[in-house]
């Protein structure tokens, strides 16, 4: 097991290197010096901030030197200061991260709770009525522009029906609430964003769950279990589901970048102060330090997610540990 983890870690190193190269390269795509762009597009940047930035990035140095310095700072978890309000980028991200994580984890939990049973039931009778119904739903889910759905829900539930809040994280009189009510209030505000985020992921996952279960239920050991006279329930959940769930682990790791990306859209539409909104605002204001840090961190989170998924898979399925790399 340990060898597998180490081998997998070493394999990640070149990817890590390329990620830093790309994040660094983005800043140099803009015409002229990065500070030129910051100045002309954003008059809020003071001359002092500009000089400090030029010194910080060593813009008079050759690219290689600049890259090496930037890499060194990133390794020490120093992301510089935001152009917009001169606050440390790390601090800005740290205060936004919990919101995005809450939305993503909640919607992930919701997706798993719905997609897995949906996939299993559809797989029990492939081609049956339920299977066809879920197939239709899956197609709709795949093709639905989630930002449009978010807009419709916003208008429908927020503006017309006035059932749910339309934006932000808290009610106006939030300060006067007790602890429990504060929690409920936040949950109330996050309900719609979480539902929308879950909707997008639901289609893909239930589809994979279905095909994975169909595959498993065709195996010999399922026939054996049935022949032994086990109840259908036990065959399905004890022998079938445990094996059918395996590919979902990998899929969860792979879906991380989409979850992070989905946060940009959901948070922008519902005006939620999370990482996605921070990224959007930074991009619009050409706040390079924030953009570069978020691209790097987003990619790092994905890498860690994939790594965890692969390790979990190897833990759950001994065939992977013994054999070569997955895939």
């Amino acid at each position, binding site marked *: 097991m340990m060898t597998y983890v180490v081998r997998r870690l070493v394999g990640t190193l*070149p*990817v890590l290197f*390329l*990620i830093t190269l*790309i994040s660094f390269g*983005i*800043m140099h*795509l*803009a*015409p002229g010096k990065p500070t030129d*762009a910051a100045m002309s597009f954003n008059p809020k940047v003071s001359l002092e901030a500009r000089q400090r930035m030029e010194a910080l990035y060593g813009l008079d140095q050759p690219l290689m030197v600049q890259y090496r310095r930037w890499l060194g700072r990133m390794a020490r978890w120093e992301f510089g200061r935001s152009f917009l309000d001169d606050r440390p980028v790390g601090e800005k991200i740290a205060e936004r991260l919990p919101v995005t994580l809450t939305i993503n984890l909640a919607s992930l939990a919701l997706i798993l709770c719905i997609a897995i049973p949906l996939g299993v039931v559809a797989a029990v009778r492939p081609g049956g009525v339920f299977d*066809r119904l879920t197939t239709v739903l899956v*197609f*709709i889910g*795949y*093709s*639905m*522009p989630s*930002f*449009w759905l978010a*807009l*419709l829900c*916003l*208008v429908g539930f927020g*503006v*017309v029906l006035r059932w749910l809040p339309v934006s932000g994280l808290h009610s106006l009189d939030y300060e006067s609430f007790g602890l429990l009510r504060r929690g409920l209030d936040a949950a109330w505000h996050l309900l719609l964003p979480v539902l929308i985020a879950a909707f997008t992921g639901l289609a893909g996952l239930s589809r994979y769950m279905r095909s994975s279960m169909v595959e498993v239920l065709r195996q010999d050991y399922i026939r054996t279990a049935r022949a032994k006279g086990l109840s259908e329930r036990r065959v399905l959940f004890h022998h079938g589901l445990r094996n059918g769930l395996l590919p979902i682990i990998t899929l969860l790791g*792979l879906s991380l*970048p*989409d979850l*992070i*990306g*989905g946060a*940009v*859209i959901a948070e*922008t539409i519902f005006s939620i102060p999370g990482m996605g909104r921070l*990224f*959007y605002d930074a*991009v*619009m204001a*050409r706040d390079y330090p924030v*953009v570069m840090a*978020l*691209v790097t961190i*987003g*990619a790092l989170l*994905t*890498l860690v997610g*994939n790594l965890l998924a692969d390790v979990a898979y190897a833990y759950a399925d001994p065939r992977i540990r013994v054999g070569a790399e997955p895939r």
Partner: protein
Amino acid sequence: MSNRLALMGGCVLIGLALLAVTAPWLAPHDPLRITVSDALLPPSATYPLGTDQLGRDVLSRLLYGARISLVIGIIAVGIAVLVGTSVGAIAGFYGGWVDAALMRLVDTLLSIPTIFLLLAIIAMDPSERLLQLTSRVPLLGNLLTLVDPQIVILMMVLGLMSWMGVARLVRAEILSLKEREFVLAARVLGASPLRLIMKHLVPNAMGPVLVSATLGVGGAILTESVLSYLGLGVQPPTPSWGNILNEGRIALGVAWWLTIPPGVCIFVTVLAFNLLGEGLRDRISRRE
């Protein structure tokens, strides 16, 4: 059932393509003409789908938007297929360190959240630099000045961010194809690597690529609409389904004709591409 659905998807797409091509004759008004006195009118006989806040006809803008969306989606996927097939074929054929290096590049691009990368690159406004670079190339430079450089950038960035799946597909196909007898026979006959790849390997790997490309056009249209909605895709006054939705945001809950029709257009188009793609997948997997 999937066959019938695929056929339906195909018909919808043909219809859409016809609408897009004939937009200048079908559109009741000039999609760019501003009539401030007619702002935010509900649907009527003169304006079948109402007007936006500048008094432009929404139906005409939707029809012209279909052109933009389809062209961007198809060209972006064209770029993705070209790059993905080349990278996948080279990686699969040569193997060894070439394969390892190219696949690490694929892993890297897959690990950065796509929307982050798209927004960051587009916001850096690389169109000026692109024009500078291409102005020296005689024919291409002239050609690029004819189209909106923002849209060229959008297609290129969308394509260059979505070739990784195709590359993995082609690589896997080539890995298994290159062990087959007919490839060995061609090799023994003295075919060059280029000929082997172009004549014997790539054509046989095109089935799954076709499926992934069809699904990819839907995905690209979806991404383009998100970017345009966020204000970083197709820039007004050029109409696109995404930026009509963006402009409708101001009158959200009041002017439903700015929010419902563009969304339905995106949904139906993407659904049609997905249905067609899945139908093709069924077809190909049944043949094998």
